[in-house]
């Protein structure tokens, strides 16, 4: 469990750092984040290949990559939206920068997955059962966030919320989807963490 929290905190820290990336630096936040996600994928593969006692299975490897990457993407998006403000527009420098950085991070997630994934994928009915628990939590979280968003937009329009542009609302909706997905991956990783803890218990 502690490993999940550490990776979550590191990924969140990465997302926030990228959102406050200095403009004058020779390369942007997106390429930097992409590079760091690739390095994280290489490091994860190295660690898992050396683990002979209780290495993660194929679905768990995928979940680690998805969890770390989506936490970085979500925190980057959240911090960027916060920094830009409610009147965010797409065809502006800030809008273009957010688009490039976000898609670079998505590309980094894909590359990290390709590097760290199990070369010989293997899963069984219990993995499917754990995945169904994750889907359950994802759908419930998404429904809750959408309902919350609807209520806030419709019934509690503070001055800040009234000023929200359509692109800003659209990006908040995307953020809700990523957060729901993140909750699903966390639930699944917790189930696998229980597996590892049980495997370490004496027979």
């Amino acid at each position: 469990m502690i490993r999940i929290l550490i990776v979550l905190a590191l990924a969140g820290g990465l997302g926030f750092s990228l959102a406050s990336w200095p403009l004058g630096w020779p390369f942007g936040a997106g390429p930097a984040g992409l590079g760091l996600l690739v390095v994280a994928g290489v490091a994860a593969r190295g660690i898992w290949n050396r683990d002979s006692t209780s290495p993660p299975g194929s679905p768990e490897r995928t979940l680690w990559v998805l969890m770390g990457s989506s936490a970085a993407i979500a925190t980057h998006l959240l911090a960027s939206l916060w920094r830009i403000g409610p009147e965010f527009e797409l065809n502006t420098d800030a809008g273009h920068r957010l688009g490039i950085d976000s898609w670079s991070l998505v590309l980094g997630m894909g590359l990290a997955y390709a590097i760290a994934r199990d070369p010989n994928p293997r899963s069984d009915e219990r993995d499917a059962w754990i995945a169904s628990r994750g889907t359950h939590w994802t759908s419930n979280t998404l429904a809750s966030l959408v309902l919350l968003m609807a209520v806030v937009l419709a019934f509690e329009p503070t001055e800040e919320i009234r000023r929200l542009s359509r692109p800003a609302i659209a990006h908040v909706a995307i953020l809700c989807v990523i957060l729901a997905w993140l909750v699903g991956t966390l639930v699944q990783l917790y189930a696998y963490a229980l597996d590892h803890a049980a495997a370490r218990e004496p027979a």
Partner: protein
Amino acid sequence: MSGTPLGNHIRRLRFEHGEISQETLAQAVGITRQTVIALEQRRYAPSLELAMKLALVFGRSVDDVFFWSDAPPDLSLE
């Protein structure tokens, strides 16, 4: 991720069959070692297909491998 009301004799049967490892059993029935561990610790109830595969690999009936750990529920058709 709680336990299941079904118990099983998988660990004992493994030892009775030449002390086969969890990994060997997992490969024989097409599951992962983690699932064998979860079954032995009663943290997972297998599908009927997996239960029958496990019984088959030990040469037993499903009833010989799996059992109600408490009194079975009082079920009746009437």
